[in-house]
């Protein structure tokens, strides 16, 4: 008895030491063994269209992982008909079957992943499963099967907006597009949870749990309209394929604000596929430069009107051919001598007619007007990779550059730069830089509007009105681009069929660039639309034929979505041709033909 008491006393003393005197440091070590830290990923902000429709959204996903050394002991049980629990399968194959039934993965492949794990105690079974699938797997109670959480970026519009939005590459790093430019706002602040875990990593519910919650990123609201964006992409893709073309771009812009409602290019890429080259993932709509061709005649015409060189009815006698700078110029379609007004030259897109009045401008004036309309510098859209284009300075010009400049060859720019010219003309002469980001929405739903650059007047309201009047005659059933017309609406627009430089050789061997740009309704313009198709090989080469129908489709869709009423008055008519024999009013002996600007130079 005494011995028992002595031993018990010794034990009691040891207990006092373990639980009392030495407890603090040992307990701290014990806590240290149990504590684990888990990062709580911050939800990346969504990118939405102007109405809040999701364009890029992060969704919670689960990666199903496993420790094969534990899974091997798994026994799959079922209640038999007699109510007894029966083992119906064991080990890897049974576990693989269960997971395959839930996720739809291939059971053989799952078994292989268990038998040939990535590490001794780690293998990835299902790389991308839904949280609900994980709950079902968890309920199956396979010891050793665990989960990793991650966020997957989904792009509901897929290819239609991929080059614009960008994508999330490996390591959750944004790669390109708006995802990259606005990464700081979109990325939140990751949080952290510290808690005690048991043997299998389960949270000890009675233990320490401290959480520093994650701060989700801000949502980005674009000026884009998801429906319009999709329609633009779809129509463009169809047209590029029909025409056997290399590529194409399209944009829809709000004239008053410069906000882009759609900006797309084809071919595009699948933003969820990470195995493609960066080359294929460029945003061609803002990175590709091309020689704009006839749409650029709008600048020459505006300059002539602003400089007082010509008026809308200035008679111009366009010859069959003419020589300038040692080269012979002609129009796209052969024609006899044309007696066109200034308006007619623009409406019929006569190269020679343009040269005839344009050559009254000096080299510097031509150059300055180009730059004034924003050609040769980035539009300020703020997307990565935007090209400034190239407008050579007059000192570097060859003998013919001056003339080709007038009808948009010998310089290069992007579609958005060209569209900007139309925006300015449509907006009473005030150019507003294009924008794509409307604002941000923070965690609490507060909307902060993005700062928008102000507009700048480039031409007078009178000039813009004159040009609008002239351009109304083009996309009409009687005009040169009837396919671009929209029944019931007055549309102003301009075709272009430009010689295309082959990007590989640097020579004019690349076919043509066919485009159509314009705005509507002409009397109170709401939208400007640009459609560009590179190197069409089928149907036609003409911009009005290739790009016109896409333009018409998009513009009509945009106008009708906004509920803009069709025109009730007939369109403004301008005189396209003149009668060279008609007497000039008030001057008996002078005919219009005498006054007309003609090719009087013989210096070739």
């Amino acid at each position, binding site marked *: *008895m005494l011995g*028992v*008491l002595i*031993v*018990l006393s*010794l*034990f*009691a003393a*040891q*207990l*006092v030491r*373990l*639980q*009392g005197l*030495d*407890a*603090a440091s*040992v*307990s701290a*070590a*014990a*806590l240290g*063994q*149990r504590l684990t830290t888990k990062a709580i990923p911050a939800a990346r902000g969504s990118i939405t269209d102007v109405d809040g429709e999701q364009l890029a959204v992060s969704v919670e996903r689960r990666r199903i992982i496993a420790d094969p050394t534990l899974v091997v002991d798994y026994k799959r049980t079922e209640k038999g008909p007699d109510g007894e629990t029966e083992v119906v399968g064991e080990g890897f194959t049974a576990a693989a079957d269960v997971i395959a039934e839930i996720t739809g993965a291939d059971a053989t492949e799952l078994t292989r992943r268990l038998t040939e794990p990535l590490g001794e105690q780690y293998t990835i079974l299902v790389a991308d499963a839904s949280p609900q699938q994980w709950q079902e797997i968890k309920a199956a*109670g396979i*010891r050793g099967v665990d989960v990793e959480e991650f966020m997957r970026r989904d792009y509901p519009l897929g290819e239609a907006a991929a080059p614009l939005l960008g994508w999330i590459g490996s390591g959750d790093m944004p790669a390109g597009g708006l995802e990259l430019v606005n990464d700081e706002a979109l990325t939140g602040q990751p949080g952290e949870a510290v808690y*005690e*875990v*048991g*043997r*299998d990593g*389960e949270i*000890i519910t*009675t*233990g320490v749990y401290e959480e520093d919650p994650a701060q989700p990123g801000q949502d980005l609201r674009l000026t884009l309209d998801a429906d319009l964006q999709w329609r633009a992409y779809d129509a463009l893709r169809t047209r590029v394929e029909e025409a056997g073309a290399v590529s194409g771009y399209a944009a829809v812009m709000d004239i008053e604000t410069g906000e882009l409602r759609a900006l797309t290019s084809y071919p595009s890429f699948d933003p969820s596929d990470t195995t493609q080259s960066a080359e294929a993932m460029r945003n061609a709509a803002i990175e590709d430069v091309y020689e704009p061709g006839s749409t650029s005649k709008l600048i020459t015409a505006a300059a002539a009107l602003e400089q007082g060189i010509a008026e809308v009815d200035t008679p111009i006698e366009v010859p069959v051919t003419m020589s300038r700078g040692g080269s012979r110029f002609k129009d796209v379609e052969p024609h006899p001598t044309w007696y066109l007004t200034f308006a007619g030259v623009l409406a019929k897109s006569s190269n020679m007619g343009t040269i005839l009045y344009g050559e009254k401008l000096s080299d510097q004036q031509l150059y300055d007007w180009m730059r004034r309309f924003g050609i040769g510098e980035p539009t300020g859209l703020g997307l990565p990779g935007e090209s400034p284009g190239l407008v050579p300075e007059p000192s570097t010009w060859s003998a013919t550059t001056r003339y080709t400049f007038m009808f948009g060859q010998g310089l290069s720019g992007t579609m958005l730069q060209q569209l900007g010219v139309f925006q300015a003309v449509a907006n009473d002469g005030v150019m507003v830089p294009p924008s794509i980001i409307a604002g941000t929405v923070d965690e609490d739903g507060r909307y902060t509007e993005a700062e928008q650059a102000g507009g700048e007047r480039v031409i007078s309201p009178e000039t813009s009105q004159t040009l609008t009047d002239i351009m109304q005659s083009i996309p009409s059933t009687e005009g040169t681009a009837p396919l671009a017309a929209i029944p019931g609406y007055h549309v102003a627009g301009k075709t272009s069929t430009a010689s295309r430089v082959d990007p590989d050789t640097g020579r004019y061997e690349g076919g043509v660039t066919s485009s159509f740009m314009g705005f509507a309704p002409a009397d109170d313009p709401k939208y400007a639309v640009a459609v560009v198709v590179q190197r069409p090989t089928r149907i036609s080469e003409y911009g009005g034929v290739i790009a016109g129908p896409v333009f018409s489709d998009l513009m009509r869709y945009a106008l009708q979505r906004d509920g803009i009423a069709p025109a009730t008055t007939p369109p403004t008519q301008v005189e396209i041709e003149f009668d060279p024999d008609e007497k000039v009013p008030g001057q008996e002996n002078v005919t219009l033909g005498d006054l007309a600007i003609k090719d009087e130079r013989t210096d070739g």
Partner: protein
Amino acid sequence: MTTILDRPRGKAGAAAGVTQGWSVQSVGEWLRSPVAPYYLALVSASVLTGLGLVMVLSASSVGSYRDNGNSYTVFLDQLVFGVAGIALAVVGSRLPVAVWKKLAWPGIFLALALQLAVFTPLGIEFQGNRNSLSVAGFSLQPAEFGKIALVVFGAAVLAAKRRVIYKPVHAAVPLIFPFGLLLLGLVLQGRDLGTGLILLAIIAGLLWAVGLPARWFVGLGAVGGVGVAVLAAGSANRMQRIQTWIGGICDSPQVEGCFQKVHAEYALADGGWWGLGLGESREKWGLLPEPHNDFILAIIGEELGLPGSLAVLSLFAVLAYACFRIVTQATDGFTRLAAAGIMVWFLGQALLNIGSVIGMLPIIGVPLPLVSSGGSALIAALIGVGLLLSLARSLPGADDALRRRTGPLRRTLAAVPSVGVARRGRTRPAARAGGRPGGRR
């Protein structure tokens, strides 16, 4: 005598170490009474069993949920075994000692038969140990019943040979040879070292109690010590256990062989002075192995603090004291020896278990009697308690005194708190005046 009979309700309080206003003198007087061993054994065993059930529920809940999807599976099994064991204990406590004595030979043969059955297809091999039987869906560990059988058998044969015990042949036959060695051999064959040690201790304890000369124990102890040293040195596993015990190498659970020891220390340290609270254990979340079995004391210490773990030690001390009183007061040889056997069994096993948990002994792997989970161990231990109570009743004057009480109903009501509170209120002033003159505050 009359004093005692007037105050039957005070025994529970005295056994639990609470004076309830009794004076030191009156408590001492009661302790010397013939019924004290009965009540001390009854109360300490009951509290240990009750505490065991509560702690098995707490300690097993996490593991049970993980393995069975139900936090209560292990506990409900234990509860069923507990109820069966308590019924057997009640029956056993009412059996006259003479009947127990008659069970000696059938008991030892039954125990041997069951132990042999382990090596038939009925036996179950688990983690290299072959020490259980599968009976009607339950797993039965015959060695646990072997303990009680050995105690009864040993006490019976040695009591008969009391006068010739100085002759080595009579001391050894038939207790050691053939029955003791057979049983021990079979248990060790099943690789159950812990139970083997307990059986060995029971045999030695019985021989000591019957009065075998001390020089025999010195000799046997020397032989045993050398044997243990040879066995230990011959096995890397055993050497490692000794190394982790006294080598001072366990400063983290990752050190090989230290996992259990260090996590037991963690549990006790987490509990600290006052414990984390019932159900709040952290180490039971799959970290400390066998939290509801071999290491249940660590969970008691973690959840109930130092008061909890020291209470377990105190309860075993009280149980030991009850056994000791029976040994010293018994006039009958069988009673004396059987009580000594029970004492060696319960206390030996308890000390081995507690010593393992608190790092003062190598980890041997025996359950804490009456407390740890395990149906066979609990039922066998409760049968042992029944035997102990039967022995206590047979003490001179005890049965008489117990019979004069008004019966089970009165004894049951005595445990109802309201009665105790009323009594306490009435007796407190007297206690202050007598027992603690200065008062506490």
